């Protein structure tokens, strides 16, 4: 696309300028010359000249074309969204959209145009909040290619496709337009998130974030909300396609996929700020030690990606699956060295669930700033949750002694317990804290 070549020579905008772009394109109160009656209005309209209108039409055509390219690959999944990324039927959504399913489960999803397909949960990445489905189809399916999220610029126009508030009749996606507000955020459980102001609401989870070429640059997953109001506030987060691309091979192999971590090292942001991450200690016999890292090293890049701080280092590392090997560039003394480090899996993780069941549907689409726990959106009648007295609207703060902050975390705790276990559930309801008791059932 010609616009991509020219983009390389465009100036770079700051985040604040990007916000101004969005404001300009959004809420405006204009004191129009239209105050003046009759003839003066016509004059102003003439003066604006068709040049402006022509430019607006061209940009509009580009947005329409991107929608036309990507919308056929849109799917609705369990009240959320997803997108097909290959003609064979591989599709992406958020882990939290499918957290109620087990690996291997098959259920109906719908492709745009209200066409039902059976999808199977092949692999899932709870920490990265990405799940991989395989749609069963004899014919090739419409799909979107992965774009390069590292090529995104703050201020760039992006489109989100989704199913906010479950409005998608015929699985026709809702399309919203916004800009990239910020990049590479290590926040809200996401290591390297794209922040956008394209309106995202409950139901957008799992849906694609696209550039104007119609390429997938992210999967929308979280929104910042205020006052417990689960609604767009202009701050949405997407998992970048770069990270997804690293996980696709492992996800295709199937199962629950773990993220890698740099085992055996402690870091802090080096001084002066922006100069990297300083290694403060290296544990003996650790992966870090075996790779040759030493205390005092200053890490400045991972696989060529600059890491100006400890937060960014951890964010970059969080985009790799367990077992990946990365090249870590360190400054040691007066020189720099490149070290190969294997990122291992965390030690204790349940691989498959035990079959324990509580009986709640959870709100998982938001990062509630200041709101504790996970929201219960539905209590299954006759379930252990119902018997315990849980109600929709309750926020589960901790379960069986483990604090939980997201639906995947809560599901992980439950799956790690046996049916028949008696658990205490700490709940926030209407500003008060309650402790309820439940006996886990069997799925």
């Amino acid at each position, binding site marked *: *696309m*010609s*616009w991509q070549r*020219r*983009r390389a*020579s*465009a*100036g*770079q*905008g700051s985040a604040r*300028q990007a916000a*101004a*772009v969005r404001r300009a*394109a*959004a809420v*405006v*109160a*204009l004191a*129009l*010359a*239209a105050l003046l*009656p009759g003839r003066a*209005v016509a004059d*102003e309209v003439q003066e*604006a000249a068709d040049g*402006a*209108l022509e*430019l*607006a039409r*061209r*940009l*509009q055509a*580009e*947005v*329409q074309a991107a*929608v*036309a390219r990507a919308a056929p690959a849109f799917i609705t999944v369990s009240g959320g969204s997803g997108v097909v990324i290959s003609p064979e039927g591989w599709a992406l959504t958020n882990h939290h959209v499918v957290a109620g399913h087990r690996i291997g489960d*098959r*259920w*109906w999803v*719908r492709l745009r145009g*209200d066409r*039902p397909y*059976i999808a199977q949960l092949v692999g899932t990445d709870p920490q990265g909040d990405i799940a991989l489905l395989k749609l069963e189809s004899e014919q090739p399916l419409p799909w979107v290619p992965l774009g390069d999220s590292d090529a995104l610029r703050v*201020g760039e126009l992006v489109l989100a496709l989704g199913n*906010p508030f479950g*409005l998608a*009749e*015929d699985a*026709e996606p*809702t*399309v*919203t*337009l916004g800009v990239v507000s910020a990049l590479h955020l290590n926040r809200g459980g996401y290591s390297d998130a794209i922040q956008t102001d394209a*309106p995202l*609401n409950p139901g957008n989870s799992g849906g694609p974030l696209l550039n*104007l070429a119609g390429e997938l640059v992210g999967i929308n997953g979280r929104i910042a909300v205020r006052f417990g*109001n689960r*609604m*767009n506030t202009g701050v949405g987060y997407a998992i970048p396609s770069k990270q997804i691309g690293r996980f696709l091979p492992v996800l295709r192999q199937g199962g629950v996929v773990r993220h890698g971590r740099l085992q055996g090292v402690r870091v802090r942001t080096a001084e002066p700020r922006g100069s990297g991450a300083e290694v403060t200690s290296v544990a003996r016999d650790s992966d870090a030690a075996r790779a040759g890292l030493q205390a005092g090293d200053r890490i400045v890049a991972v696989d060529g990606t600059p890491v100006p701080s400890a937060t960014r280092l951890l964010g970059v590392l969080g985009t790799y699956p367990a077992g990946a090997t990365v090249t870590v560039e360190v400054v040691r003394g007066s020189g720099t060295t490149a070290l190969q480090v294997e990122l291992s899996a965390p030690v204790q993780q349940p691989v498959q669930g035990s079959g324990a069941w509580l009986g709640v549907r959870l709100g998982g689409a938001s990062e509630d700033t200041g709101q504790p726990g996970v929201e219960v959106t539905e209590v299954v009648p006759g379930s252990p949750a119902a018997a315990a007295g849980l109600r929709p609207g309750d926020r589960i703060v901790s379960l069986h002694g483990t604090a939980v902050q997201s639906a995947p975390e809560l599901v992980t705790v439950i799956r790690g317990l046996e049916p028949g276990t008696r658990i205490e559930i700490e709940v926030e309801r209407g500003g008060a804290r309650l402790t309820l008791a439940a006996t886990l059932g069997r799925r």
Partner: protein
Amino acid sequence: MLTPPLRRLGVCAAVLALAAGLPPVASAAEVLAALERAFRQAAARAAPAVVGIEVERDAVPAARREVAEFLLPPGTPASGVVVAPEGLVLTSARNVAGAREVRVVLPAGGRLLGEVLATDAELDLALVRALDAPADLPAVAFRPAVPPPVGSWLVVVGFGPEGRPSVNTGIVSAIGRFDGLMLQTDAAINHTNRGGLAVDIEGRPLGVVVHRSDRVGVNSGVGFVAAAGRIAERLPALSRGESIAPRPRPFLGIRLGEERLDPSGIVVAGVLPGSAAAAAELLAGDLIHRIGEVTITDARSLSRALRRYAPGDRVVVVVVRDGVPRELELVLGARPEADE
């Protein structure tokens, strides 16, 4: 208030370079200024027909009022659109619901008493007659129209402070929502521009901004516009004072169980006594596989299949009972009124 920041911007000029056949634009600021001018131009075409709607209500329970209303100065008007020069005004029915008194505020400053002639519950529109209107008010003609492609610009013009237009912009997010009645947009919709006019980048009317569902948050980036084509169809009846009630929805009378893959369908978890399902001797445990021509997959497909029918219609339902398919004929009942 916005022009200065725009002029300082240096954002992707490439956004504009995609204009095939046009020379590359020198600065991104010029691109954005051009977009701003185009929006302003479109809004200018719409503004003369946009009026304010003020209402007096007996106290409304706090739970029903939107948070946004608390934040506005008391008496801030909502919006309406003049659709006939003799003073007929369309607005969102929600704007005038439960009102003791309705007033139409003209851009030039006149206040006219209004009477609600008719409402359309499906489109959420109310037609108001402004009494003692001056002759020849600028009016919008709504015509049957092909809906704009998704991704098109959409400009909402509302009645702003001191009668000046307020402008919000976004794109068309979806078309044909709610059985073809509405456009969906991500332009910011709030209490004050509800009832206002939505136009495309050319300034052509796309519809009237309405309130569709309490489920959808105010200013959430999900807003609805009663489509111009539908308005054109309904206006004659509304002008005659004929209100349109919500269409009763068909009702089977079952509790839904789990979905199945093969054969596909929804398991009946329970049958409500006295319902259409009960009369047809549907049993708990039956798998609903087809309704009419439509093969059922998940719960949503079942409600979609039912929407083709009206209460009282006969429909053939294929169920699978103990592994054996059976055809049952149902006469559909009516769904009890429920919020969207």
